[in-house]
């Protein structure tokens, strides 16, 4: 495993002792005297008219403080969204409910047990209506999800920015290619199934309205504390600065905590109404139907190429499931797929996804958010094409890559400028690490023995680290949140009078190790031990405003701001040190907690420099007191990390059981700040991609009931299910931020699902299997074998 770091090697995650010893503080750990607890009454039907809601029995129970229905909360309006395309979610719904789990009423009681008992005692009459779950049926508008509105909310068509004439020309070009004598056309409809994000810490929110001061403290397990502060302010006619949101430790997010949720608004509402702190923590089964889900695409991918591996065109046409209501980014998620619709390739690409509603829980961002889906279709169909023409799948990919010579300045066929890339070098490194030709030989030897061993390869490029506000400005705004769409990084570095330092930063972690990474950047810049550096995040009172933690953006955007703020502090400290040491500023270097005159033993500690900074009469003339600096970083582009993954599997043909034998990841996220953290992000990302490939499936019945809504039936990958990953990296620094880093939080997920599927299909090639839809549970694999044999 590589230990390359721009900042000097492997550092252990300093946040882990608290987290692994159960001493971390999460939202549900916050105890305030007099706290009331919430339970929701949720619809058991996917589509039904609520004919009556009788709350009298619940309200009369001992310990019940209030029971609210839509009549109490409709005046607040629906749930706000950054991309408000489609119907927005009512906070509570006493009209026509649109999915199982939709909140109908809210009970507030003295303890969570009474709240649940009372919620069970709320009597709701439902008149069930026909539900639509199937995407093709939804597209037909046969059953409208919202009366009088088409189920299709928007269609994303790419290349981005192409007008109708350009699109027509593109399609004609691909059609013409199909007519060539040497044309090979490979087409496959594939399902990229719905997934349920399952952070270890479920969502939790607590609101403490302080009437005497007309202000809120909100504690929430959220990825977007600033947006939540803005939202709460908007609902209750308050300014952002009257609302303090504290995201404490966040035990996993993966995008599902990147929404402002109706329950967060409702808990705040109840706290204001009742004059006491109010808390709600979702239960695991509740989460399955009330926290956003991810993926949910059905699409047909088509590659047109020559017999010698030149791809002449790629087309993707399909349908993406938005669920019943649009929340924060809902319809924008497939757009993120469009960003990387042509992957790392140079061939012409036509891309169209229809975003449709169904009577199911909302979909939104889930680790990778549109990019794993887009990469899946592309990498599966390129693999099928390679198989069809009998060419090494690595060779086909290499032949069609955007060349390293095209950087800087490369523009993807989808119309987006890319920062840096060297795909062939990365591919070669992966092949060498895996021992590609030996692997293929071993596979062939196993086949000769009648064993079904397969080798799968896939490569990817993804886009993350958002980003220039213009690039992500879809014409909507954060006005509803009282948050402008400034995707800036923001960081304040302050050296205290004793020479310790604090960095306040906009984005907070949900497991990504920010406590370590930011301390490394500051520590490296100031020559200060990381133990002397405190990191503050996730608190809107103490940390600068931020759009939040998502899209693998923290290091590339806020990390860059942190780096620049550190540089400003260092520059000022150098002036002070030079003054104290009677040396030239240029000769000052920082290391081991002190400033030193280069080549001498003359030095002054950070404590002495800082003490001086806070005694202005000791400072050089013209220098203001204090020792802190703020930096905003606005990147000129997103970052485009890439990589190559290889999987080796063996299939038991009698049972369809897939054994994942090896998994090799060769990722390139530019420069690496903290190798252990980067590897950890890749590990988790790959695990989630394998989870989709082999285990996870949000299965809805035709009536809209979620059949896999508990962890008994929603099978998550565990460490015990996975081999030890073999990871290494190539390093192609980004040129759009001073650290040269690219996002790595989602790359593992974006590269992995298709790698596993490619391997399983390879294993079953002797039987004639060409495709199996995920998840590759034994049942499906066995059926594919039977179908191929038939």
């Amino acid at each position, binding site marked *: 495993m590589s230990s390359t770091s721009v900042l000097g090697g492997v550092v252990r995650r300093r946040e882990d002792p608290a987290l692994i010893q159960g001493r971390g503080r999460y939202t549900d750990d916050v105890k305030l005297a007099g706290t009331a607890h919430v339970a929701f009454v949720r619809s058991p039907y996917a589509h039904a008219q609520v004919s009556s809601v009788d709350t009298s029995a619940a309200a009369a129970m001992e310990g019940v403080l209030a029971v609210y229905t839509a009549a109490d909360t409709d005046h607040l309006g629906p749930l706000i969204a950054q991309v408000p395309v489609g119907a927005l979610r009512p906070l509570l719904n006493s009209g026509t409910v649109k999915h199982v789990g939709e909140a109908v009423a809210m009970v507030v009681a003295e303890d969570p047990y009474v709240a*649940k008992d009372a919620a069970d005692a709320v009597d709701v009459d439902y008149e069930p209506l026909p539900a639509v779950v199937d995407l093709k049926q939804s597209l037909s508008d046969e059953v409208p999800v919202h009366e009088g509105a088409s189920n299709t909310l928007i269609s994303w068509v790419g290349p981005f920015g192409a007008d109708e004439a350009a699109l027509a020309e593109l399609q004609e070009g691909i059609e013409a290619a199909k007519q060539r004598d040497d044309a090979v056309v490979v087409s496959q409809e594939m399902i990229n199934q719905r997934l349920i994000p399952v952070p270890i810490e479920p969502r939790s929110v607590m609101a403490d309205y302080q009437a005497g001061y007309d202000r809120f403290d909100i504690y929430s397990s959220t990825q977007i504390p600033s947006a939540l502060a803005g939202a709460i302010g908007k609902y209750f006619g308050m300014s952002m600065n009257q609302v303090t949101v504290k995201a404490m430790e966040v035990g996993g997010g993966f995008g599902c905590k990147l929404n402002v949720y109706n329950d967060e608004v409702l808990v705040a509402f109840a706290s204001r109404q009742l004059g006491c702190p109010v808390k709600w923590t979702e*239960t695991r*089964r509740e989460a399955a139907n009330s926290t956003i889900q991810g993926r949910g695409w059905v699409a047909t991918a088509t590659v047109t190429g020559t017999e010698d591996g030149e791809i002449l065109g790629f087309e993707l046409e399909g349908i993406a499931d938005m669920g019943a209501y649009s929340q924060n980014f809902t319809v924008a998620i497939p757009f993120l797929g469009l960003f990387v619709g042509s992957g790392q390739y140079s061939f012409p690409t036509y891309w169209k996804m229809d975003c449709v509603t169904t009577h199911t829980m909302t979909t939104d961002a889930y680790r990778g958010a549109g990019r794993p889906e887009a990469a899946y279709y592309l990498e599966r169909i390129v693999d099928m094409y390679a198989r069809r023409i009998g060419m090494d799948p690595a060779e086909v990919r290499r032949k069609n890559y955007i060349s390293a010579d095209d950087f800087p300045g490369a523009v993807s066929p989808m119309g987006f400028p890319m920062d840096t890339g060297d795909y062939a070098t990365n591919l070669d490194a992966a092949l060498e690490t895996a021992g590609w030709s030996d692997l293929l030989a071993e596979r062939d030897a196993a086949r000769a023995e009648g064993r079904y061993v397969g080798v799968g390869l896939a490569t990817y490029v993804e886009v993350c680290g958002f980003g220039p506000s213009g690039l992500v400005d879809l014409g909507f705004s954060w006005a509803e949140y009282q948050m402008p769409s400034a995707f800036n990084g923001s960081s304040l570095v302050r050296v205290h009078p004793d020479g310790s330092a604090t960095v306040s930063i906009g984005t907070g972690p949900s497991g990504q190790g920010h406590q370590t990474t930011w301390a490394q950047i500051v520590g490296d810049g100031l020559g200060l031990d990381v133990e002397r550096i405190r990191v503050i995040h996730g608190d809107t009172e103490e940390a600068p405003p931020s759009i939040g933690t998502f899209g693998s953006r923290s290091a590339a955007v806020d990390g860059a701001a942190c780096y620049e703020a550190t540089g400003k502090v260092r520059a000022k400290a150098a002036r002070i040190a030079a003054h104290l040491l009677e040396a030239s500023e240029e000769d000052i270097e920082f290391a081991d907690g002190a400033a030193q005159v280069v080549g001498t033993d003359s030095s002054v500690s950070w404590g002495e420099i800082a003490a001086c900074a806070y005694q202005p009469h000791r400072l050089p003339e013209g220098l203001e007191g204090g020792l802190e600096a703020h930096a905003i970083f606005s990147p000129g582009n997103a970052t485009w990390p890439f990589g190559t993954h290889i999987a080796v599997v063996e299939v038991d043909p009698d049972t369809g059981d897939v054994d994942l034998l090896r998994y090799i990841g060769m990722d390139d996220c530019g420069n690496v700040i903290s190798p252990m953290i980067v590897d950890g992000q890749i590990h988790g990302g790959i695990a989630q991609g394998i989870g989709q490939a082999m285990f996870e499936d949000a299965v809805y019945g035709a009536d809209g009931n979620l059949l896999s809504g508990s962890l008994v*039936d929603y099978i998550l990958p565990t460490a015990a299910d996975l081999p030890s990953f073999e990871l290494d990296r190539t390093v192609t620094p980004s040129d759009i931020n001073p650290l040269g880093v690219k996002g790595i939080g989602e790359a593992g997920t974006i590269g992995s699902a298709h790698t596993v599927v490619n391997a399983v299909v390879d294993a079953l090639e002797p039987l004639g299997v060409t495709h199996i839809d995920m998840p590759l549970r034994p049942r499906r694999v*066995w059926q594919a074998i039977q179908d191929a044999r038939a």
Partner: protein
Amino acid sequence: MYPRQFDYVAPSSLEEALAALDANPGAKVLAGGMSLLPMMKMRLLSPEMVVDIGRIGGLGDITDNGDSISIGALVTHTEVSASGLVQEHGAALATAASWTGDRQVRNRGTCCGSMVHADVAADQPVAALALGATMVAASSGGTREIAAADFFVDTMMSALEPNEILTEVRIPKAGPGTASAYDKLGRRGGHTDYAVAGVAASVTRSNGSISAATVAVTGVGNRPVLAAGVADALVGSDGSDAAVEAAAAHATDGIDVLEDLYGSVGYKTHLAQVFAARAVKAALSAAG
């Protein structure tokens, strides 16, 4: 995950526990709690009282009775799988216990609890069936013995009366030429998680042929159930691979195979046959 209100007692003797059950017909017995507590938290089950037997002495042992071994009500899956006695005389059960749940569950959950819970896809009940186990049930009126074959009545329903506690699973010692084995496909693949389908088999080989066999199937029907068709076909055969495979074809004879998220009727039927063959072959191999 908030259960309804319930009363809780933790008696120190079996007599007190049985008296509590007599006095409270809506009570449930708590041993490891690995199935009971989740069901209560999900409000699928809301007993008025929970009788915790965890503080009762003498229920936590695996004992050698001479011709049989007894597994007490508080013996955990981990203890069953690690027991030399169980490994020697009931290898199918030791294996089934080692594949039950995950390590945390195995350290808390009990063998007897798994029997009483009678999950359609559990591992250990079929091992008890194949081994010809006897279930010893205590009530304030005394104890009664129930053959494993009569114990698993319906979906998640055992023959235990509400006022009874399963105090013991008793397994006959394996005689010469007798051995057992268990094999399955778990929902996560391999042996992990509940069985999509699993088969336990006990066989006795004497004078070159199979003189006795008991085979049971889990995961495919509404309960853990004996596969008499396989056993009948095995007895008298030479135990060759061909004979075993022919017998295994009867794995779901007379069983109403049910579809679930993990398998169609056709797939589960097929898997039952695959694992019947694998389990019988493993048992024969161990029988020597």
